[in-house]
């Protein structure tokens, strides 16, 4: 019993210490975001890697989700004659919930893992130490551009995901299932408010910051060789996804 309690205590302490370190890393990152020099070229490069290169994954996920959502809700709603509400369900789900969450998870899996692996490799091959010896702050040079690019690009990727998901739902609802297009569009527009879109986009900014922060934190603090890089990469994806799902609830409650 005592052993069990000791184990629980040590695990809890370890988690609390890790959380503290992440918060300290975030504070440092935010501090370096506002001080010179600014590496705009690095920022643009990361915006391309994190954002532009994630477009195919996000598009596929969003269009598939929108189409499946229309198909499944049609099956259910048809039972009580409410097929006209498909447009509302698809657009509300995509803007408030599925757009930001699925985009967040996809970017965490693709770009978060890539960030952790790249920085982790730089750590174990002493490239980060080399930056210090060349009088260049690696937090500014490596972490800040990735953190900002992840936050900014998640916003645009989510907006794109929302649009494409709704378009996918329209295609299935109208072209495949034969719902009246005017009714579909009217229902979608009348029941979706601008604030619904903003709620989703605010979530996306938070999720983008989470992916950038955790990817960089895990990579920056990699220890050991190839095994360490593997652990950092897995850790970055798992922790980012968990945080996105946990924060999603609290953000949904807050932005009700």
């Amino acid at each position, binding site marked *: 019993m005592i052993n069990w309690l000791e184990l629980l205590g040590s695990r809890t302490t370890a988690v609390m210490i890790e959380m503290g370190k992440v918060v300290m890393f975030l504070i440092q990152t935010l501090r370096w975001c506002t001080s010179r020099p600014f590496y705009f070229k690095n920022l643009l490069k990361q915006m391309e890697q994190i954002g532009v290169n994630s477009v195919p994954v996000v598009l596929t996920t969003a269009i598939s989700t929108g189409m499946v959502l229309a198909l499944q809700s049609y099956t259910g709603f048809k039972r009580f004659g409410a097929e006209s509400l498909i447009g509302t369900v698809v657009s509300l789900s995509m803007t408030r919930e599925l757009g930001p969450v699925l985009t967040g998870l996809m970017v965490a899996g693709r770009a978060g893992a890539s960030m952790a692996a790249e920085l982790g490799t*730089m750590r174990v091959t002493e*490239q980060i130490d*080399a930056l210090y*010896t*060349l009088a*260049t702050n690696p937090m500014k040079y490596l972490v800040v551009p990735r953190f900002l690019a992840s936050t900014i690009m998640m916003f645009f990727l989510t907006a794109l995901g929302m649009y494409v998901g709704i378009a996918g739902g329209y295609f299935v609802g109208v072209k495949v299932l034969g719902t009246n297009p005017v009714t579909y569009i009217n229902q979608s527009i009348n029941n979706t408010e601008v604030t619904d879109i903003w709620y989703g986009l605010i979530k996306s900014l938070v999720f983008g910051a989470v992916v950038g922060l955790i990817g960089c934190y895990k990579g920056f603090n990699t220890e050991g060789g190839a095994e360490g890089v593997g652990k950092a990469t897995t850790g970055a994806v798992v922790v980012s996804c968990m945080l996105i799902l946990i924060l999603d609830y609290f953000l949904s409650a807050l932005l009700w």
Partner: protein
Amino acid sequence: MIEITDLHKNFGGHHVLRGVNLSVEKGESMTVIGGSGSGKSVLIKHIIGLLFPDRGRVVVDGQDLNTLDERGLNDIRKKFGMLFQGAALFDSLTVGENVGFSLKQHTRMSDREIRDAATEKLALVGLKGVEDKMPSDLSGGMRKRVGLARAIAMDAEIILYDEPTTGLDPITADAINDLIVDLRKKLGVTSVAITHDMQSAYKISDRIAMLYKGEIQEIGTPDEIRNTTNPIVKQFITGSAVGPITAD
């Protein structure tokens, strides 16, 4: 130029450095020898402010690294060049961009001027026409040369060498030794190297210091070290398995 006094460093209860005292004069070439885990890498990382002492002082050009803020540390670091064991070239940059990295960050030179300077430094280390290659296209010896060109790009006053010949074949290792000696003659820099390669240590050093279990055992010229009576140093330089030093 470099003054290390009573330097102690612990890692999770493991006392790696136990009161190291070492001074390096301007223009001198000092090599620290010692086995794996003796604390050589930890020592060299203290000299450039990658690690900070738990106790003791590291003074470079009259400035205690412990008392400096980030800007002060960076000013001191600009006096240094460091060649890492695996060269630590930036994978995502070309050879030319690697060599010109600090010029790009810390000067107002144009891209053309930086490229010319990188070509000049690469020529100093015996490389030509590699500016546009990626580090992954180079052999181990070439990577070390590029690392060295990057280290001297800002006209460093002090060059630190972390195991400069490790992982190289004997001929390439000797070529790197010659290069280190040659650069010192041409540039008049102060050098601090850490190695367990005795051939390299004899060739590149004015003085050699032996680090064992976190303490300096002996300091002397290469000839003094060759003729040492200290059993620990003697065993190390002869590479004998029998003696006071035991394999871990």
